[in-house]
């Protein structure tokens, strides 16, 4: 652990200035403290965002839901509005971590959680994400946790958060305030980046950027949605695989709109467009859903340790759609 100072910040502008001067932000601290303890990051200063007043979930005039970046996961999981209108997000949150962690962890921090790749977390081993150019130990190593989609020869680390997977299915956007004070909206689907040959760059966040809020647009709040998570134990484990589904049926019961996204299997929350296409315009029935779900692992690159994720992904997607469609 590197020595650092601690400074609570009172406004976003001040926070940005500190970040540009070498500070890193801390919100709930549930990931940051691990990063510090394992010596994975060496900030000169920890700028505490908890005083920014960014917590809370509100309904906007057009019916969109706005989730403040500092809202705790548990608060959001319990929020009646979110549970009623965006079940997939509430379910993803309730299935995240443990009650203790959820009471500390924040939504903004969750979007930025670093990978759980075993090598990233152990400074004694090579890792391109932690130390660019040092090599990727996971490719030929213990990679049962690693990605089968979206990887590169430089990195196959999973973005491990549950919430963003649900947010992709809800067409959600992230509100970011830049260092200069300008605000911009970024779709969650475009928020995380593929590793390519720069796995150390994980998101579109720029130095000094602060996440202010997440917005779920009005149209998505009218969809029915659902989250299914497969994990090693019944609670307190990251997803081996997860599926988020949001759906609108037309009057005839045909799929009018559909979003399917997967977590735990890819280097970023992974939209499964092909699965969506297979079902759009059709009534949901078991066979069609099963056949559509087979497309989920299209393009997967597997290794001995994570090959199981290909069938698991198909099954998880199938399960989520069937359950949502009342067919399970």
């Amino acid at each position: 652990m590197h020595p650092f100072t601690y400074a609570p910040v009172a406004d976003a502008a001040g926070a940005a200035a500190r970040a540009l001067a070498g500070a890193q932000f801390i919100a709930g601290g549930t990931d940051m403290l691990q990063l510090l303890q394992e010596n994975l990051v060496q900030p000169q200063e920890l700028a505490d965002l908890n005083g920014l007043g960014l917590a809370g979930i509100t309904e906007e005039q057009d019916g969109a839901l706005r989730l403040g970046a500092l809202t705790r996961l548990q608060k959001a999981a319990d929020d009646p509005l979110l549970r009623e209108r965006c079940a997939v997000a509430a379910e993803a949150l309730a299935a995240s971590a443990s009650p203790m962690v959820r009471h500390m962890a924040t939504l903004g921090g969750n979007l930025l959680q670093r990978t759980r790749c075993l090598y990233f977390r152990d400074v004694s081993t090579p890792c391109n994400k932690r130390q660019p150019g040092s090599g990727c130990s996971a490719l030929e190593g213990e990679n049962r946790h690693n990605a089968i989609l979206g990887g590169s020869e430089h990195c196959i680390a999973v973005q491990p958060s549950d919430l963003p997977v649900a947010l992709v299915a809800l067409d959600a956007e992230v509100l970011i305030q830049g260092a200069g004070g300008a605000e911009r909206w970024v779709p969650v689907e475009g928020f995380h980046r593929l590793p390519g040959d720069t796995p150390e760059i994980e998101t579109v966040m720029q130095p000094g950027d602060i996440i202010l809020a997440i917005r779920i647009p009005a149209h998505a709040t009218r969809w029915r949605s659902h989250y299914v998570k497969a994990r090693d134990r019944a609670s307190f484990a990251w997803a081996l695989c997860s599926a988020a589904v949001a759906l609108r049926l037309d009057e005839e019961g045909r799929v009018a709109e559909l979003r399917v996204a997967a977590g735990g299997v890819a280097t970023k929350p992974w939209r499964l467009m092909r699965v969506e296409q297979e079902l759009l315009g059709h009534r949901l029935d078991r066979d069609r859903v099963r056949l559509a779900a087979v497309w989920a692992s299209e393009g997967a690159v597997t290794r001995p340790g994570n090959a199981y994720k290909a069938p698991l992904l198909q099954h998880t997607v199938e399960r989520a759609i069937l359950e949502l469609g009342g067919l399970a």
Partner: protein
Amino acid sequence: MNAIIGQPVSRVDGPAKVTGHATYAAEFSLPDLAYAAMVLATIPRGHVRSIDRAAAEAAPGVLAVMTHEDAPRLPYKQIAQRPQVDAQSGEQLHVLQDDQVRFNGEPVAVVVAETLEQAVHAAELVRVEYARSPAVTIFDAKQGRPPGEGNAKAGRVPELGRGDVEGAMAEAPVRVEARYVHPREHHNAIEPHVTIAHWEGESLTLYDKTQWVDNDRKEIAHVFGMEEERIRVVSPFVGGAFGSALRTWPHVTLAVMAAKRVGRPVRLELTRRQLYMAVGFRPHSEQHLRLGADKDGRLVALEHDVVQQVGRYEEYAETALSPTSHLYQCDNLRARYRLVEMDTNSPCPMRAPGVVTGVLGLEMAMDELAVDLGMDPLELRLRNYAEQDQQKGLPWSSKELRACYETAAERFGWARRKPEPRSMREGGTLIGYGMATAIYHSDRSGGSASVALTGNGMAVVRSASSDMGPGTYTSMTQVAAETLGLPVDHVRFELGDTNLPYAPVHGGSITMASLGNAVVAACQAVQTKLAGLAQAAQQGPFAGLAENAVVARDGGLGRADGSGPVVPYAELLRQHNLGWVEAEGSAQPGEETKKYSSAAFGAIFVEVRVDEALGTVRVPRMVGAYDVGRVINPKTARSQCIGGMVGGLGMALEERAEWDARFGKVMNANLAEYLVPVNADVAELEAIFVPNDDRNFNPLGVKGLAEVAICGVAPAIANAVWHATGRRIRELPITPERLLG
């Protein structure tokens, strides 16, 4: 007075623990305490080429940086007879004594600073260059070799058996053969290992996490070439250990060296990640079994080979063959035990060391045999019930395993099980029932205790034992209270200090059978002493009475003939102007091992629910019935058993070190990725104790109650998974990739 033994007394140390008043090793606050942090090697084998310590030494707060270059050369005297918890041959790690690296994670430097954070930071600044040598980091069962003489002598035999296995196997109408793999596991007690070393002149006090203060003292005395009398070890509370705190690990030596170097008390606490390298673990094992049976299911031949990993600098081995040697009746038996040397830190005992491994293979193979025979798995066990210990040729001191089977099966509803796999389901979920037998040999050792009766009516009972969680404080209090005839809250039991009378190791499930009898003896000794004082006195109620005329009864002394009142101890002390009276007592194993074989037994029944599509297994209920002899405290005993069930659940479904052979290292070395069960994994657990009182084994009638509770759980779950799915997963843990693969 009502019996106290057998009552569900709540933990006497419970209030202190939940209110934070119980002082664990790390929490002793000493003036001027400094903090140490270790630098661990990052290669599996080789040597240190150079160490750049300049940045560390210049870092704020740093008091000392010590490496093999400047550490004192320590005598490391041989201990004449190695304690049973140590490796039985080879050399224990001589920490910072040379430039060699024997495994990934061997300490190569230690930094001492004013604060913990400063020490950790400076340790990260130490730059070490290594020269790597080829290392053996892949487990290859074919490389197995027999354990050496030291281990064989200590009961970790390379081979045992009887009869003609090959002949009988060839003729057996039904045969099964299978191989089982069990990965390296780590104890992961909630309290990390920690030592505070405090020198005062030539005397040393250690506040340590240990299951055996006396051994700690002896080890450090030998390492440093000191007289034992100069060392005191204090360890009143242990936050779980499961065997990891039986030995004295190298970091204790480091703390002692560091404290000497800086001339201040030093605390050295291992991080969670370091616990995977700096203390031991349950070794990876692979086993191969062949079972031959006649058409009625009687075992006619049994062959069992167990191969385990071992470190290269010393040889730690386990009694993995013990369950196979005597769990079932079988005239033809051959079991072999082999070790594969690897460049790793040394393994060590972890709850039911070896036995849990042997039981796993045997009980999974028995299930496979039952399937081939078309026989109920429980019926198969009953047909092969061992009425005596066939290997030793001795009767059991007691054995109520049949009652365990019956009680647990009934309670579980085993009769509802449909024999066909995949035949029970609820919606899309497959349901499986499985069972297994548990056994753990019962041992005793010598120990002593003292009892002081005080003028205010209290009894203070002392012995240098430990309570890593089973409830020793409470159960020993009950034994003393019952023997003295005092209420529980008039008795205080003290442990965890080398200044107290000698106690044997707090491990191997021996504590109550060993020390419990010493506590009884000490209580009786103090009663006799008080009676003697009263009889020898000039006046008082018992003055001048003959030796046998005064007996202890109901918390005091009275006349043997029942006439006259009982005079409470405290009143007698007052009458004789005594502040207190104290006596010691001890107990040693007797002739019982010549006459009997002793073991605790259990029968475990479990239900699993398998979600085949997602590859997940959940365990909604487990029922275990146990023969552990007499139960001193059913409440703490139940805690032991349900704790064992949870441990077994972890073993079956979650626990595994993810070992990377390129680095010779456990990669998931933290509690976020090394999974153990959480509350949501654990549903209904029921532990039943079948009545027994094993006076053949020891006067208290108890057997061991700790390790038996984890034996049999994992195979029962694996067997239930087969029943649910028709798939025999022979490698633990049973995780989604194995069910989907």
